[in-house]
């Protein structure tokens, strides 16, 4: 199977066989030939460790909502990847979502120390909405787009988990 992967530049990745645990197999990337063995997988089958050309490589793969890999971490160093084309595979990657959501959520757990807007107020994109106190720092949460402030789901001093809804820009 051939994959066209953009990572810093365009690469052509060719994987010829089944990728089973522990058996070494070859993968060609552009003109280089790599010997790869899968050394460790998660319970759901996702790869955690590879052996590539006699080196141990712990990996993390970040995926889009539809499961398509979008970022690879090699020892914590991020590489953006875009898988553009696959020969002989059932996957047809859908276009990534482009519309900006108006949902404003806590990007980290913390406590609301100030609410700077009122319901119904019109705000430009980038306007400060609330201050979230997290990890000894005050974080201004900004409007992701221009619009009207809908219902505010939080109150002052409320402690939020990551991902909790704060308010919506309509």
């Amino acid at each position, binding site marked *: *199977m051939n*994959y066209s*992967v*953009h*990572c*810093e*530049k365009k*690469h052509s*990745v060719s*994987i010829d066989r*089944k*990728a089973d645990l522990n058996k070494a197999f070859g*993968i060609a*990337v*552009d003109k*280089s030939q*790599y010997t*790869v063995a899968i050394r460790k997988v998660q319970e759901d*089958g*996702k*790869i*955690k460790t*590879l052996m*590539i050309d006699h080196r141990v*490589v*712990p*990996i*993390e*793969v*970040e*995926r889009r*909502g539809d*499961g*398509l*890999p979008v*970022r*690879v971490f*090699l020892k*914590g*160093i*991020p*590489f953006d*990847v875009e*898988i553009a084309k*696959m020969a002989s595979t*059932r*996957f047809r990657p859908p276009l990534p979502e482009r519309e900006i959501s108006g949902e404003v*959520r806590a*990007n*980290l*757990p*913390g*406590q609301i*120390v100030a609410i700077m807007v009122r319901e119904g107020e019109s705000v430009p994109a980038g306007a400060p909405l609330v201050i979230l106190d*997290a*990890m*000894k720092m005050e974080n201004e949460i900004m409007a992701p787009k221009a619009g009207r402030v809908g219902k505010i789901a939080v109150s002052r*001093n409320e402690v939020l988990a*990551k*991902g909790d809804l704060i308010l919506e820009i309509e």
Partner: protein
Amino acid sequence: MFKRVLIANRGLIQANCVRAVKELGATAIAVFEEQDRETAGVRNADEAYELQTRDASLRPYLDLEQIVGLAEKLEVDAVHPGYGFLAQNARFARELESRGIRLIAPRVDGRFNLSNKYMVKEAAQRAGLPVVRGTELFSDREALDAAVKAVGLPLVMKATHGYGGIGMRVLKDKAKVERAFDHIQSTSHKFLMNSPEVFLEEYLQGARHVEFPVLRDERGRTLVFPELECPVQRRFQKLLIETPAPHLEAHMRTRLQSEVRVLCERIGVFGLASVEFLIHEGKPYFLEINGYIQPSHTATTLLTGVDLLKEQIRLLSGESLDIGELQIRGDRHVIGTYIFAEDPLDNFAPSPGVVDRLYLPFGEEVFMQTSIFSGANISPFYDPMVAKLLVRGRTRNEAMLKMGITLDEFFVEGVKTNIPLMRGVLQSEAFREGSLTAEFIAEADNRRQLVDSLKSGKDSEIAALVAALALHRDGETLKRMDALVAEQGSSSVLGAATRWLKPRKNRPRL
């Protein structure tokens, strides 16, 4: 020595204080929040007491009244505040002293107050130390304009009682000066002991920051340690330290050590303190005195073989310094890095979460303090430091090599950390030359560049390989599942295997 010491902090510093107090033969008493109930300091304490959350807006470790009340009830004779939090809180000290309990913080002559930055600067100036040009104290908004004009931009605005970067702003833009002034004034009740006064100072572009730890006993015996330098900081918190400083010439070291001694005598410091200087275009400027134990003191301990934390507690209990100048050694080089659960590529945004894979480095001349483990939950509510990592070399070059390779071996999965950034720093020409500054790291583009410098051409091939292989294996897994379904006529297997292929909430990755 003290008999019973309460430690009013959490995390690594709590555990270190607990052990220091036990080594000194006293009873170590820990306090803790529910989520910290099985951390090292709590486990190892002779007694441990759970703090109550009495007020949603006040975290228990900052709940001065509750801690003072507990200290009184438990009949302790001293409280160790660690750093941050309560370490520089004058009210905390007063409340304890009024109950006959000593706060383990440096004491000074009654005419002075260490946490008052302006007062200390004045004292240093009178003692003949060079200081940064700046204004007097003011709290009146109307005085602001003239003050800014007098100092000129860029400038540093400092609250009288700021600490650890709180109540301090570097301002390059006139438009932001007023807002900063308002912010410091409005938050002064929360962090700055209700003291809304500020002063402005000239901003010394590209200055280097060195500090000299000092031990001084009640009898006036003084020991000034070799200096530490912190070329990599974020928001005034240290990310990398070195001791001794790479480019401080011997005559400058001798001069500053003697100035430190004079200043400490002048203001009658006793206990542990750190005297800080800026070095700008070869000239030193006194900056401030820090009065609490800091994570960086571990580097001095490793370099010199003197356990500063223990000596701090001993001296404050009234015992004498029994170490001579000649017993302190500075002929090795120590580099320390602080690893935080945060993303330097996203403006150091905290990255709390669960550590799901962890490879800790270890080895000859490699020293680490950490309480994380695979499965540890990194709390979002406190300083996200996960490890202090130090190496010692015979030369700076040896220490740099060792730290670089040790960081390569340190792998944390599940939360983002500054390990990649620190690896980039250790490989950079600027750091090797000793010319890296805090300002350089403050720029997001520079951080990105340092991390990118770790990538080789081959790495992008490997990342592409990994992405393709991950997808390839998904396909394989699906096919195997399809075959299984065809065989068994069940769809539940497929359901389980393809769960992750359905759209998930598209939250930012931890």
